[in-house]
């Protein structure tokens, strides 16, 4: 699998959740490189290819973004809004992954163009199950759009 076409960007500020997500990926034997940024500003910088993420060999444009909503600096919704108006990135599949099941957040996220909305499961088994579904669905079964400024 070409590394440039299977990178997943995880936007998550909670280091525990990052660790657990990485463990779940490891346990599911997923070889996808998991890039992690811990706030909204860094997410925008990474996706826009700005410093310190300008090297696309080390920081390739992801094929999927797992986006938390409650983030320092820019919120997840602001990142979502930015991506959807940014030419070349606007088709990027974004899955919201957050702890809020608030119907207002769900609807706003879809209004702003989220492709899917998942609530972080409590319990490692549930997280593990989710990752095992997520990876094949979005990275293998799902047809990827063309991103023009890769």
């Amino acid at each position, binding site marked *: 699998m070409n590394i440039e076409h299977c990178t997943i960007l995880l936007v998550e500020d*909670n280091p*525990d*959740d990052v*660790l*657990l997500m990485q*463990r779940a990926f490891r346990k599911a034997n997923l070889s996808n490189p998991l890039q992690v940024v811990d706030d909204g500003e860094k997410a925008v910088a990474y996706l826009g290819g700005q410093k310190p993420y300008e090297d696309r060999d080390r920081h390739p444009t992801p094929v999927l973004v797992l986006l938390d909503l*409650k983030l320092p600096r820019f919120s997840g919704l602001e990142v979502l809004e930015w991506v959807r108006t940014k030419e070349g990135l606007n088709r990027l599949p974004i899955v919201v992954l*957050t*702890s*809020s*099941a*608030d119907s207002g957040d769900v609807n706003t996220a879809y209004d702003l163009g989220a492709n899917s909305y998942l609530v*972080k*499961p*409590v*319990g*490692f*088994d549930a*997280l593990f199950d989710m990752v095992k579904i997520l990876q094949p669905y979005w990275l293998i079964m799902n047809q990827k759009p063309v991103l023009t400024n890769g």
Partner: protein
Amino acid sequence: MSITFKYSAGYLVPVLLLAILAAAIYQGAEQFRASTLMEERSQQLVDEIQGLRADLIDDETSGRGYVITGNPVFLEPHLAATTNIPRRLITLESLTRDNPRQKERFQALRDLAEARMKYAQGVIDERRDAGFDAAANTVKTQQGKHLMDEARIIIAGMVADEAATLQRQHTATAVLFAWRKRGSIIGTLATVAIIAIIGIVLTRNISRRTGNLLNATRALGAGDLDYRVEPEGNDELTDLGRAINLMAEQLKEHKDAVDSFAYTVSHDLRAPLRAMQGFSQALVEDCGPQLNAQGLDYANRIVAATKRMEALIQDLLAYSRIGRTQMEIRPVALDAIVEDAVSSLSATIGDAHAAIKIEKPLPAVLGYRPIVQQVIANLITNAVKFVKPETMPEIRIYAEPRGATVRLWVEDNGIGINPEHHQRIFKVFERLHGAESYPGTGIGLAIVRKAIERMGGQAGLESALGQGSRFWIELPQGATA
């Protein structure tokens, strides 16, 4: 303008109109009386003048008779006229006092009458003292006749004038009376119409606006906290509208605070919980070989505790959502809801090998479907859970129409509840059993009661220790469709 002012004005205007109308009618009656008096006076004037004329003629005739015969018997009418004429002159003076034209004529007539009386007396005295020839000579001068002729002319003028006045008065009175009559009818009708219009306008206005306020309080009560009253007018109802808007503003602030609290609970409290659970499980899985049995037991206890805490947060959120959800109350069929509730619990029911009997058909009730279903699911969950170990739960669900409401019963063969605890168990976090025997958060029944009360119903139970429980919820009857 206050409502008090509007209503006072609304009453005062018709009262004022009625007073004006009464005054106008009274004044009309007075005028009618005055004109009648004037007619009487005119008539009296005419009568007196005619009387005066007769007296003057009597006086003349009487004098002539005496002059010719010298017999005093002829003087009787003269003597009567002598007393009558001055009396009549006094009466006539007062009757002509207010009419300058007649007054002028009267003065001339009085002079003539007095001159005529004086002349008559002179001729009579002459006849008595100087004899027939002297008196006859005086008569021949025709002085008496001239005086009489002049008097006749004035009298005729006065009578004609008064007759004309009388006629005019008569016509004027008739016209006036007709106008007064028309005026009082129109005035009465207009007053009645104005009273009716003021009443309708005021009542409509107040009724429409109280209706708006009622709609606003209903909408706010149903949870639509963005509903506001349109400000209108400037009276007590306007103030009430502003007060309702202010109250809605406050409610919204409180609701927002509760919402953000719920968000904090669901988001921020769950994050460390996820970490605790994830890492305790990772500990068991990744470092299990290095742990002894006690270490493994501790780690498993941490996992179990985090699961309970997750359930607690879930239930607390559900409970707070009951208070915040905007419920659209409409008729819902209990048949379908009970069935959905049962199928949503199929795993729990299957695990417990519970037998559930639904006595169909169940009627419709007024409620908000998702919440009614949650309430019924909570009751079924309890009925399945609270049985003696090794007992197969048997649950019977049936409805009892109670006039305007419907009571839905969920009957079980469980452990039962001592009546002294019947009220307590509907409160948040109230539990009768330890987590070891019957796990739970103590929120399920609190949700039941709060949800049912928000939908305008009641919840309760009949039970005794060891005899099973019969929980009921009561909601307004829905349209039978």
